[in-house]
């Protein structure tokens, strides 16, 4: 499952620049079907990114495509083994998916920072 932060729902929604505080996540399954989940973490005063990651993990997401992910969200993402790609110039979900298919999106955060296993 692939997740992309988006500004609204619809056929081809626009990518939201903010990961932890985006309005919705667009989840795309192997068949290309889109579902939307509301980002209930977006109004948290702190730690929105981490909570957003756990929402995605509990929806079996293993790939995230996003414009920018802060270091505090990267920690749990790496820990969970989720892959992250930067959207690059893509502005919409279709463009982002196209980029992924063509293998032109840049993978981010390969190297693991000092993590604490629990």
């Amino acid at each position: 499952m692939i997740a992309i932060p988006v500004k609204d729902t619809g056929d081809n929604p626009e990518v939201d620049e903010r990961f932890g505080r985006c309005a919705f996540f667009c989840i795309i399954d192997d068949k290309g079907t889109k579902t939307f989940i509301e980002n209930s973490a977006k109004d948290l005063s702190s730690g929105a990114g981490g909570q957003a990651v756990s929402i995605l993990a509990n929806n079996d997401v293993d790939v995230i495509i996003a414009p920018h992910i802060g270091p505090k969200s990267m920690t749990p993402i790496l820990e969970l083994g989720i892959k992250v790609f930067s959207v690059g110039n893509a502005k919409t979900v279709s463009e982002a998916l196209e980029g992924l298919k063509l293998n032109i999106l840049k993978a981010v955060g390969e190297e693991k920072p000092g993590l604490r296993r629990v």
Partner: protein
Amino acid sequence: MNIVVLSGKGGTGKTTISVNLANIAGSDIALLDCDVEEPNSHLFCNNEFTSYEDVGALYPVIAEDICIHCGKCGSFCNFSAILCTKKMNIVMPEMCHDCGGCSLVCPVDAISYETRTIGHIRRGLFNQEQQFIDGILNIGEFSSTKIIEKVLSQGLDAKHRIIDAPPGSACAAVETVEGADLALIVTEPTPFALSDMKMVVEMLENMKIPAAVFINKSGADETELLEYCKAKELKVVGRLPFFKEYGEVYAKGGLLSSEFPEVNKLFVTLWRDLVNEA
């Protein structure tokens, strides 16, 4: 006796006043710098630190063999320091506020705590005879109160303690001022400084701490400032005018009270008045 030196936001020379007061206040004092996010009294103290002590905060560790993955700790934590996912629990120590709540909600006692370092305090001598202690919060940490608490627990054997508070009126300043005998508010005769100072005065009023005002860089029109002080019954206990020569000494990290006899006299009088006042 504890004298806290504080100011509104925006650099009115709070540190200058504290270090110069300490410089002339005799041997039986301790100077504590509680501005742990930007401690800079040490720049003026020309001293060497003789000992360091780490300050720690707790973070939870989950015993995976006991944990039943109920998710209660993760949904309890208001700071997202524990994320409970289907796959695993992830603890982010640097997000933890050390509230102790997660172990209270855990039904099977799977949570214990370990300590991580969030900063340290340093001890040394200022003028070869006075105690000097400051604290430093590591970059990226948010909880200065633990470091401040540690700094404030030092130098208790000195007759008087001069405490340099963090600027402003937020939590860290409140923590520093708590229990002080007297607060010395450092301000300047400008509308900006007056506006910033009002929040500090409000804080001190709420905490019922007696306060006095010191006007740094005096020389400009003080009418508005004095009217405010009068309305709030705040006594103006001293003034330090601004001269270019003072600025030069300050710029190099020098002590005005050592370089200029008139400044020395001014601080000696101020110190005497403060001790009488408190």
